[in-house]
């Protein structure tokens, strides 16, 4: 029977993978379960693995395996283990924070012999769920990803028996049971040993129960057996293992010799066909093709020989008896410094090089769009927040929208993509935006539950836009912070939308604000607008004004205006969606007036045309570019409509312009002004929303009345005709960005607010954040 807090021996088997091993060791510092020892079994390594391990002297037991045989290495670790539970993880994987805790929870059932969790493959372009509740047949056919126990209960295959299996990179066993079973069969050099063991345990009447929880993030690293993310590897080892597996397990399960023989032939033939396809696709050379095919025959012969004529190479009972007895004390891996270790990037292994006074936070952010796939203003801000918080040492999870459910790691954050599932709230189908948003909120809530179980996230930070944190806030499961941006009600008023769908979305925004534990407006103006629109008066300790920040570009990329360019054609840049709210109509009216007075000027308008959604197309029958060309043919050649541009092109546009203009009728903050100021460009905006908190009138740019084309034209002309002001204002703007609006400063403000709200949520005591209620 397992005691209240059973000890765990965590075994890592490694050869020539010092880099990934260092990453894993750093990540293990964050495990929530403290009662585990770490055993690293090092194969015949050629790199600096031992040097990496020397940094953990006294906390890690280092053993040696004389050959590159994974099963043997696993058995060496098993024989040295002192814990009641033995867990295995690959050296190129990183576990979730509560990985061991979830595993140990299962082992409280005395009948359980083994378990394993999900494995997420962190791939730069095609991340996928590699394993969850997998099953395997007696002829080595596998179904690795199932949603529930009954999915693929009758999978297509030839094997008689299908049983549960785990993946070697995420599995745990009761140590006594594993020793009694003789450990891993050492015939399996590289692959198949865990599956074979699972089958043997199940056939012996032991219970194996993998779980949906306790995932690890697998970042495949190169080894002597395979190159990651390529088709090059010693695949004949798979053939060898599979044929051995069929011959050992097939007869025991009642598979006929004819079926087993056919399966073995299919294994070899299948590999040949795969090699042929790779050769045809020019992914391997002709020589490799021939060599791979020949090696497969060699592997098949070896597997055949082993399966037919050799006994299983398990631990002899005498060796198993020599293992330490249960209950011996372990040397825990975690020490007093572990709780204050900064979060680790599971791909590069990097982490913030700062000393944390308090333990790092575990934060969940949401954003419908997120880089690198697609992003809007909220996505861009969320990305910067995630990056800044990671650099301050915190673990960040971002929940975003995707084509399918998958996890990857991007620029400091675990990015969890969720596919849209319209499986709830059918009553609201007639208000489609609300219907989609509610379903998405619920998907986020379910994901947050998983993140609590597996990663122990402490809070959810949701933008007001699409009220993504609403269901979580209603559930009360976590403290929810809401980033206040332009409210839907304000946008609807500007666009003239008065339908039920928009109204109800506004109501949901209000409900989210009311239920949020803390509000994070980006400007005083946003807070005032929320007060005015929704009639809410948040208490001073319930909000913190956090102005947005950006990444300051290096000094050598800053291009202030050069006075010698006076008289040459200057470029005026607009960035934003071409829609009414962004002030595109007064801008298009102002452009001809500017060109009449400063003829050499060139205008660049970058952004997606939204004329079909803001009513412009309905009124005029054309988009904005067409409208301008039709009404101002004389000036059309001086105005370029670029459409949507990617981030790289956008930075080029910022760098190359001389003046930036964005006459939005309302902006809650105005990140675009900061981005232009970052390159020392003077800016022109409107006296609306939070823009005056970004642009210092007369110092870093000019502010005009919203919707006034004449005033806008006058401001642009006055700057274009004053090279000294162009330069001075640009440089002043750059200084303002560096001093007040960097993403790290923003992240520190968020961190301060988060710590305060977590304390308040956990203790009910008032927060002590000096920033609360202030900017």
């Amino acid at each position: 029977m397992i005691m209240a807090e059973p000890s765990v021996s965590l075994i890592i088997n490694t050869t020539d993978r010092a880099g990934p091993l260092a990453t894993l060791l750093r990540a293990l510092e964050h495990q929530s379960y403290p009662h585990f020892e770490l055993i690293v079994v090092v194969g015949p390594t050629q790199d600096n693995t031992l040097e990496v391990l020397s940094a953990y002297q006294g906390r890690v037991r280092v053993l040696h395996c004389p050959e590159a045989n994974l099963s043997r290495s696993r058995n060496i670790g098993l024989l040295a283990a002192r814990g009641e539970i033995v867990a295995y993880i690959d050296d190129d994987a990183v576990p979730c924070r509560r990985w061991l805790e979830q595993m140990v929870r299962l082992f409280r059932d005395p009948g359980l012999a083994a378990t394993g969790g999900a494995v997420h493959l962190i791939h730069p372009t095609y991340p996928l769920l590699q394993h969850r509740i997998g099953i395997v047949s007696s002829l080595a056919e596998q179904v690795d990803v199932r949603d529930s126990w009954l999915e693929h209960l009758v999978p297509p295959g030839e094997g008689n028996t299908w049983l549960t299996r785990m993946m070697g990179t995420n599995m745990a066993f009761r140590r006594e049971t594993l020793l009694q079973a003789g450990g891993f069969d050492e015939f399996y050099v590289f692959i198949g040993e865990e599956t074979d063991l699972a089958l043997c345990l199940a056939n012996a009447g032991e219970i194996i129960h993998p779980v949906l929880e306790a995932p690890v993030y697998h970042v495949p690293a190169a080894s002597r057996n395979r190159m990651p993310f390529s088709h090059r590897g010693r695949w004949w080892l798979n053939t060898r293992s599979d044929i051995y597996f069929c011959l050992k397990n097939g007869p025991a399960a009642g598979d006929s010799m004819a079926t087993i023989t056919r399966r073995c032939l299919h294994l070899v033939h299948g590999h040949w066909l795969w090699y042929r396809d790779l050769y045809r696709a020019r992914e391997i050379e002709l020589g490799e093709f021939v060599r791979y095919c020949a090696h497969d025959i060699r592997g098949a012969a070896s597997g055949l020989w082993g399966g037919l004529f050799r006994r299983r190479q398990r631990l002899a009972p005498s060796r198993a008896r020599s293992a330490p007895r249960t209950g011996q004390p372990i040397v825990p891996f975690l020490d007093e410094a572990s709780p204050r270790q900064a979060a680790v990037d599971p791909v590069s292994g990097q982490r913030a090089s700062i000393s944390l006074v308090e333990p790092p936070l575990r934060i969940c952010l949401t954003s419908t769009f997120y880089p690198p796939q697609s992003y809007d203003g909220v996505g861009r801000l969320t990305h910067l927040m995630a990056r800044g918080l990671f650099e301050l040492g915190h673990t960040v999870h971002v929940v975003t929208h995707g084509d399918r459910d998958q996890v990857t790691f991007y620029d400091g954050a675990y990015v969890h993509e969720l596919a849209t599932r319209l499986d709830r709230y059918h009553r609201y189908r007639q208000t489609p935006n609300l219907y989609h948003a509610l379903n998405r909120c619920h998907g986020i809530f379910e994901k947050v539950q998983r993140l609590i179980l597996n990663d122990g996230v402490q809070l959810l930070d949701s933008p007001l836009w699409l009220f993504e944190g609403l269901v979580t806030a209603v559930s009360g499961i976590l403290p929810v912070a809401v980033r206040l941006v332009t409210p839907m009600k304000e946008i609807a008023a500007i666009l003239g939308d008065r339908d039920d769908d928009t109204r109800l979305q506004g109501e949901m925004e209000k409900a989210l604000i009311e239920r949020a534990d803390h509000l994070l407006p980006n400007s005083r103006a946003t807070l005032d607008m929320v007060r005015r629109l929704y009639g809410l008066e948040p208490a001073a300790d319930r909000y913190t004004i956090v102005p947005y920040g950006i990444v300051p570009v290096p000094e050598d990329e800053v291009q202030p205006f050069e006075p010698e360019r006076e008289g040459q054609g200057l470029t005026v840049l607009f960035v934003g969606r071409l829609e009414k709210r962004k002030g595109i109509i007064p801008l298009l009216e102002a452009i001809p007036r500017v060109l009449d007075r400063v003829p050499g000027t060139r205008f660049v308008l970058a952004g997606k045309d939204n004329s079909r959604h803001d009513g412009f197309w309905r009124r005029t029958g054309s988009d904005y570019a067409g409208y301008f060309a039709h009404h101002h043919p004389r000036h059309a050649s001086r105005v370029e409509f670029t459409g949507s541009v990617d981030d790289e092109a956008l930075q080029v546009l910022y760098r190359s312009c001389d003046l930036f203009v964005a006459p939005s009728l309302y902006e809650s903050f105005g990140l675009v002004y900061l981005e232009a100021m970052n390159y020392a460009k003077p800016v022109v905006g409107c006296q609306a929303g939070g823009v005056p908190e970004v642009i210092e009138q007369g110092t870093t740019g000019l502010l005009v009345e919203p919707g006034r084309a004449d005033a806008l034209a006058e401001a642009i002309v006055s700057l274009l005709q004053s090279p000294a002001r162009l330069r001075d204002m640009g440089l002043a703007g750059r200084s303002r960005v560096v001093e007040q609006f960097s993403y790290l400063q923003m992240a520190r403000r968020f961190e301060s607010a988060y710590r305060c709200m977590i304390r308040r949520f956990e203790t009910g005591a008032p927060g002590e954040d000096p920033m609360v209620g202030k900017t």
Partner: protein
Amino acid sequence: MTNSPTADEILRDVEFEILHGALGQDDLGQALQTARRFHTRSRHELLSTETRGRDRDLAARQFQMDDMLLALLQEMADRLRRLQIELYRTSGLIPTAGAGDRSGESEGLAVTSPPPLAEPDPGAPSGSAQRAIELEKLDVEAHIRPVRLPLVGGLLTRLRATLHTLPVFYVRQLAEQQIEVNRALGESLAQVNHLLAEQQAQIEALGRQVQALHAGSDPAPAPGPE
């Protein structure tokens, strides 16, 4: 939807879905959904073909039995849900995941994800499910009526027997699939039974606790969130 909904109605629906999700998103709920999908697909595949006579009757009858079993499962799942709600009410917990532990620790979230240890391993069905599976040995034998004609009678009988092997072959496949459906249903039933027993035990324990608290001279507050 004839009348425009109000924000309060939407929020009530949100709360309902949280409660519903807490019960429907566990492994039992997923298993039931999977069984239903498999059942529907099998019915479609088997009955939409040109199967005739006795084979079709056999399949249709079996599907009717499955429908009854699914209805039974649904009823038991509903009863389980009612019991869980009763449990929440008795214990003073709000029926959301993590309600009893606002930091979201495993104890609170166990509501949404019942300890998986309660579930039988698919490779090792429980006793009752195993018996149910064993009782459902669906099989069809060919009944060949011998032809009594002289000389060619034997030949014709063998020919008839050969012709009969083809439908028997397919019907056996059908029967195998049906057995798997039944196996899935049996497993789900066993899970429901197990969870039901656990919930009843919890309710009884809490009832006893409440009685003890009432009987005591210094009543303690009911367990619940801060």
